[in-house]
């Protein structure tokens, strides 16, 4: 866009600039409109909920209320929880999540690429992978508690399993889809099998792998939380579990809100990472600014 603009004679140039400005202000107005609609929606729902519980239409003991959730959050952040400060609980959950995410991703990528590259290995492993994948993960949670006790290792293990399968299948598929021409070219140019894998297969498959990371982080979080709900000494899942035990609806909501915030922050980081490693691609996923 910018290059063609400079080639247009000055009179048209002004026209073009005028058009661009109009388009930009139009876009800004639209964005503002959407934002205000979104805010209105939130106010409506939360306000309605608050009003309904204040009026007694909704039983605030069963369904909680926005002000109750706020109070709960305030209590947690100022006075802590029964299992230590809220930051400690967040820390425990995040540690389990991130550890599970990293280990699961690494294992998934390594095994996915290995099986994608080595056909004989893939054939040997196929039934085991399929069988492993068919086990409902929550069952594994109970098993890990027996194996690892109530500490964080069981939660990490559950997160690893959840993350592994989602990353593995993408890494495997990504490896299978690598352009044969690129591999042949690298081999002709003198690359060893290891170089082919690290410098051609991995970058090519990265598109697939990175796409799975969004879901994978969500799975890691689920693994950690479910693990904690099943039995733990600390963590957000354990807080939620405790609130549930006390029929404290507000506590459950407050836990959910904290988890949502964490998930959004992680999503933001993963999107940044994605943009970084896939910079070379002609069409970015969010190519909004590419034309300007």
């Amino acid at each position, binding site marked *: 866009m910018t290059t063609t603009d400079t080639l247009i004679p000055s009179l048209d140039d002004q026209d073009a600039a005028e058009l661009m400005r109009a388009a930009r202000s139009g876009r800004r107005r639209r964005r503002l409109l959407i934002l205000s609609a979104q805010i209105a929606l939130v106010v409506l729902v939360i306000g309605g909920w608050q009003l309904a519980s204040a009026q007694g239409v909704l039983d605030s003991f069963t369904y909680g209320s926005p002000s109750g959730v706020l109070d709960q959050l305030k209590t947690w952040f100022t006075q802590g929880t029964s299992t230590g400060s809220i930051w400690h609980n967040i820390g425990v959950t995040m540690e389990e999540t991130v550890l599970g995410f990293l280990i699961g991703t690494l294992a998934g990528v390594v095994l996915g690429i290995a099986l994608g590259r080595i056909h004989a290995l893939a054939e040997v492993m196929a039934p085991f992978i399929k069988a492993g994948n068919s086990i409902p993960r929550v069952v594994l949670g109970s098993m890990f508690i027996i194996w690892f006790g109530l500490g964080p290792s069981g939660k990490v293990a559950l997160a690893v399993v959840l993350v592994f399968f989602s990353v593995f299948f993408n890494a495997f598929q990504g490896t299978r889809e690598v352009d044969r021409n690129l591999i*042949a*070219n690298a081999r*002709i*140019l*003198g690359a060893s099998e290891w170089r082919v894998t690290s*410098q051609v297969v991995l*970058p090519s498959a990265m598109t697939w792998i990175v796409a799975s990371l969004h879901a994978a982080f969500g799975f890691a979080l689920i693994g950690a939380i479910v693990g904690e709900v099943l039995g733990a000494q600390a963590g957000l899942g354990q807080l939620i579990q405790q609130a549930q035990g006390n029929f404290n609806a507000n506590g459950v909501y407050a836990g959910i809100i904290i988890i949502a915030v964490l998930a959004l922050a992680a999503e933001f980081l993963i999107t940044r990472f994605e943009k970084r490693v896939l910079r*070379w*691609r002609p069409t970015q996923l969010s190519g909004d600014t590419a034309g300007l």
Partner: protein
Amino acid sequence: MAAQANQTTTGTAPAIELRTVTKRFRTPSGGVYTALRDLDLTVAPGEFCAVVGPTGCGKSTTLSLVSGLERASRGETLIHGEPVTGIDRRVGFMFQTDAVFPWKPVLDNVAAGPQFRGVGKREAIEKARDWLRRVGLSGFEDRLPHQLSGGMRKRVALAQTLINEPEILLMDEPFSALDVQTRQIVQDELLSLWELTRPAVVFVTHDLEEAIALADKVVVLTVGPGTVKDTFAIDLPRPRKVQDIRFHPRFVELYEQIWTSLRDEVQLAYARTAGESPRPEQAPEPGSGPVRDHEPAVNEPRTNEATRTNDTIGQPR
């Protein structure tokens, strides 16, 4: 540099020799397809050999045999008198389809060869810069392949291949995707670069003019299963300018001869592949400028052929 290229060649052995080579492929339906049958081909060191033939006759397959990416089902493939057992370091291969690494900037793409072969990063980059200059791409070092035009990408591929200074250069329709003007520029570039290091070249093309303008020898293959039908020595003077040599009287003569040989094969292939889309094959007036009438017949199978050929390359089953 030419001296260096020649001294490594062993005595009088041809650079490339295919002896009664047959190549069979297993088809997805479980059958066996013979792509090449009893093909004989000899290319002397420093010789520029063009291969023409109808679509699907086994031109790409021939190159993949020489490169070591594929094994012959029967017969012998020799490079400098030694049997080909795998990928040979002396071979460079420019593929039919784009094969530059899309995630690497131009400079890194060209430097990839030396780096794969263990040259230090700094040295490889220096060399790559030099080669980019030679193919006329200075100033584009930091671009990604998708930010280049098709012609520029081909030149990157050329530099990427030539930087290894192959003694044997295989080129599979390297310029077929380019417009006529760009093609002529790149063809001239290729000729002058070839004069520098004098590799033995096998140059596959559908463009008879291109074949005659560039080569010392044009080999016509029969319709698949491919085997050599005719070999024509191109006794046109060198150095050549591609756009001028076309008007050389000898060029027109050669064109007529070779086209006569090629025409029957092309028509046979056309009848075979395009049975469902009847479009009468026009035998072009020999020597009437750029004649590419046989190309449409060839275009469609050519595109998916590339992936198919390389399927077996990547994963021998």
